[in-house]
């Protein structure tokens, strides 16, 4: 079980434990199509993707945001997540190996709640960020 971060012990600059994911597969994109209800064929139908100028199908941005959710909830419990947001900065292709990483960027109090701000991101095997996100979690 993930423990609630202790506000006094957290320091700006603290790194989250990185997670290296297995390579993205077409099967995973099909599962996410069903699981998320995002049925855009561009992620699962190569004929459709090619028609619109792409070399292949590519991952849903929201699949990767789901990975960021996993990273954040490996740092703080689910019910402590107050914000999660991201920019989708480059396309994630089938076969890409994504690493999740993050760090503490701030500590503050809002409405009597102690909060920790995080920078979180997805980076591919070439060192290119595919998602540049941020999150806020409540601390104890």
């Amino acid at each position, binding site marked *: *079980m993930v423990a609630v971060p202790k506000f006094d012990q957290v320091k700006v600059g603290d790194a989250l434990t990185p997670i290296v*994911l*297995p390579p993205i597969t077409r099967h*995973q994109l099909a*599962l*996410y199509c*069903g*699981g*998320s*209800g*995002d049925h*855009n*064929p*561009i992620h699962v139908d190569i004929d*459709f993707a090619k*028609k*619109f100028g792409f070399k292949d199908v590519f991952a*849903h*941005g*929201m*699949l990767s*945001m*789901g*990975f*960021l*959710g*996993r990273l*954040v*909830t490996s740092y703080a*419990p*689910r*019910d402590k*997540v*107050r*914000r*999660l*947001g*991201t*920019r*989708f900065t480059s396309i994630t292709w089938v076969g890409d190996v994504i690493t999740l990483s993050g760090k503490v960027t701030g500590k503050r109090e809002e409405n009597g709640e102690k909060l920790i701000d995080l920078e979180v991101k997805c980076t591919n095997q070439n060192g290119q960020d595919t998602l540049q996100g941020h999150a806020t979690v409540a601390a104890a």
Partner: protein
Amino acid sequence: MQLDRKVIGHEFEAFTATAEAGKVKLFCKAIGEEDPIYTDAAAAKAAGYKAVPVPPTFLQALTNDDPGKGGLLRLLDVDIGLILHGEQHYDYYAPVHVGDTITCQQKVTDLYDKKGGALWFVVSETSMKDQAGKLVAKATGITVVRNPDAGKK
């Protein structure tokens, strides 16, 4: 292609979606989430949850449960093959659990172009309320539309 800023302020029809256990399970499998709190009521209770919670970005599965799905594309008259997801942000005000019925109301809040009209950005906000009428989350998304006419002159 020229998108019209008059769509700003457009409100889509509200709808209600249920956080279904089977959908959450499939969602977890897709993202590789193996924490049993999302699939096992006993594990969720042991971790201090009153019911099985949904993963943070499962809210997308709820907003995608729109019976009028694709409304934004129809409003803009844009083909689905031309869109990309630019940004997504969630503000969480209260937890969502399996079995909750969430009412979603989406509206267009901004529209602008970049690169001389080669890319258009459509911002929309969705408020999400639970069965008690309590605001549980706000979802803000930016959809990028690739202009098929760009560079064609």
